[in-house]
């Protein structure tokens, strides 16, 4: 299946941005955040197109550096979505959009409302995410720190 087209709307090269065909902006938080490709890019586009926001700040993608050794980011199977400080989403809406998108496991990492908060969604179990973090469950797994 072909990946839907994106329009590059970057105005500051430090913060790349793309628009989906539905007019939703995928905004990266810096030059180190890697845009997913293939199936995961399709999932990201479905996520932003169905979450209800006009612009979604993405804080993790395919970047291979800095993550844990078996990270799903490095194998292009995960995204991080900036938390509620930046993306005005409820956990229910984020979970519904992630399911529509085809992600199978996820967690919300809650660092007490700081800019470190984020939703992590991945395709497949592994690297710390198992049955407890399955998106088949009725509620998203939230980890408070």
């Amino acid at each position, binding site marked *: 299946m072909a990946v839907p087209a994106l329009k590059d709307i970057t105005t500051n090269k430090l913060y790349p941005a793309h628009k989906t065909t539905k007019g939703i902006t995928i905004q990266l938080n810096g030059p180190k955040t890697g845009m997913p490709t293939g199936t995961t890019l399709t999932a990201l586009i479905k996520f932003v197109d169905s979450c209800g926001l006009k612009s979604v700040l993405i804080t993790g993608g395919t970047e291979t550096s800095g*993550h844990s050794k078996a990270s799903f980011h490095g194998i292009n199977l995960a995204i991080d979505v900036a938390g509620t400080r930046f993306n005005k989403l409820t956990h229910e809406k984020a979970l519904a959009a992630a399911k529509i998108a085809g992600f199978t496991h996820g967690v919300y*990492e809650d660092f007490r409302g700081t800019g470190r908060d984020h939703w992590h969604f991945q395709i497949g179990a592994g690297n710390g995410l198992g049955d407890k973090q399955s998106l088949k469950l009725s509620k998203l797994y939230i980890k408070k720190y």
Partner: protein
Amino acid sequence: MIRTLVITLLAALFLSSCNECNVKKGSYTNAGGSEQSTNLTLADKDFIVKHENWQPGHYELRVTSQINGSWTCSENLIKFTSSDKMLSAELITVGENPLGLDSNSKAIMFNENTGIDYLNEQIFYPDAPTD
């Protein structure tokens, strides 16, 4: 007279080569929102980079690493020297951004080939004062 002129000229040349540093001491952190975090602390002469990463939902089991050394600065250019590496970074103006920062905000951005993958092109933003 000529001797005085030469001394004055040499003094002016020396002073012009001693450019002021525009970088402020303090604590800086990358943008966050992922399963990794890096903090840079600049003291009078020394620096510390602390990097941590973790599996999603398992911050309590994070893996940490640290780089220490000294730093020097001329205008916006910063040189970091640790025991086995020399790293370069630059003080930048962030411009239009999605992080809610004023476009005139300053940040420290490492070069793309530092030899330490998590620092390459990493941007560090000043931490908000806690007092």
